[in-house]
């Protein structure tokens, strides 16, 4: 009669299961002992003084990339440079001249979250931060 307690090829099966458990719990031991606080982007004095960005903060946090994408298309395709936000305020649609004018330090503002979320927007391939370029 087959002995229900016995495992065949026990060594191989146990190794396979260990690999499974190791892979499934990878994030747990990869982050062991590392403190990874969420980034706090630093607002410049000018940004603080302006109080509100082009759109409300909640929208900007998750939707700024879409807004910038629209800006690019509007500027490049329609040659329109002026953006009017819902409250009627006008902005020059420019990453380097408008956004970076307020958010002066790219490294302290943009990069902090981008690095944390592991995104590398190709915007920066062309639009250099004037300060970094020096």
């Amino acid at each position, binding site marked *: *009669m*087959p*002995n*229900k*307690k*016995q*495992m*065949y*090829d*026990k060594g191989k*099966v146990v190794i*396979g*299961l260990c690999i*499974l*458990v190791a892979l*499934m*719990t*990878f*994030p*747990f031991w*990869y*982050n062991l002992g*590392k403190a*990874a606080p*969420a*980034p706090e982007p630093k607002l410049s004095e000018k940004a603080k003084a302006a109080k509100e960005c082009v759109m409300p903060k*909640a929208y900007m*946090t*998750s*939707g700024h*990339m*879409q807004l*910038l*994408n629209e800006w690019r298309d509007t500027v490049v395709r329609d040659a329109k440079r002026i953006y009017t936000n819902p409250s009627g305020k006008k902005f020059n649609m420019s990453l380097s001249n408008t956004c970076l004018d307020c958010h002066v330090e790219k490294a302290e503002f943009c990069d902090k*979250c981008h690095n*944390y*979320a*592991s*995104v*590398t*927007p*190709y915007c920066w391939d062309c639009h250099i931060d004037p300060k970094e370029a020096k």
Partner: protein
Amino acid sequence: MNISYMYSLIAVIVLFLLAYVGVNFPGGEVFFGIIIPYLALIIFILGFINRVIDWARSPVPFRIPTTCGQQKTLPWIKSANIDNPTTTGGVVVRMILEVVFLRSLFRNTKCELKEGDKISYEWEKWLWLFSLTFHWAFFTVLFRHLRLFTEPVPACVELLAKLDGFLQIGMPGLMLSGVALLAAVTFLFLRRILIPQVKYISLGSDYFPLFLIFGIAFTGILMRYFTKVDIVGVKEFTMSLVTLNPHVIKGIGGVFYVHLFFVSVLLAYFPFSKLMHLGGIFMSPTRNLANNSRAKRHVNPWNYPVKIHTYDAYEDEFREKMVEVGLPVEKMIAPETPEEPEEKE
């Protein structure tokens, strides 16, 4: 309408509503964000181990590899060393090709009656193509998700994300694997409902994982490209989970919890479903054995010590009686005394 997929579809819709509405109740975020995901991971790991150990306890009395080529034989006959492996190396190569490229599915054929009653077999590669797309896309998406669970993010994860988004469409950049996943799941579903024979053999347990994975990919895509999610907030939350210091982050939104709940359900359901083919492929005796029964002796593992009585012992026991009635024996009784010579034969 077909009960099998209606029930599965309704189940997934109910799960959606459960999470979407449920997070708004007090404690909902803790329940759907922390308790359920941890529980699901534990069920997945323990359930998986349990299932595999159960399989490992089943004896495999014979070598039963499926062979698709000439067995190793006389040296001047060419043998198929991968399709009919006789060595562990051959088995390993065949297994890798199977796991990574779904090689046996590549042989898929379609059998049809043509021109009335003429039977025809045609090659049919779509199932293979979309299954391969599905599995690779799933893996790629999963691997890219490590960016939410590691800090710092390993370079290989960043590299894969870069490759995945190399078309640079839109902002946030389109990830091809997400679209491929959704397309492949859709194909696999349509295949089940459009081909009558496949529809006939499809059960709720075939449709449910498809709908669930469709739901996961759909909510993921919804979140990334359409409804938007505060990704830094999400990562703060996921990192709190994997550093065993879980806490809820406010304002992440319902779609994220639906996504997470679907994934949790998938994890918890996994060990009890056909999805266990993930472990099963490695445990399949038709795949993991070498076809070497002519070269090596394999003893049936459930052979138990049978009480045997060899002919020699039998004759020893009954020799005198056999001789008496005139049965032939192999060893004659040594004549004890010369006075009884007539007794033999």
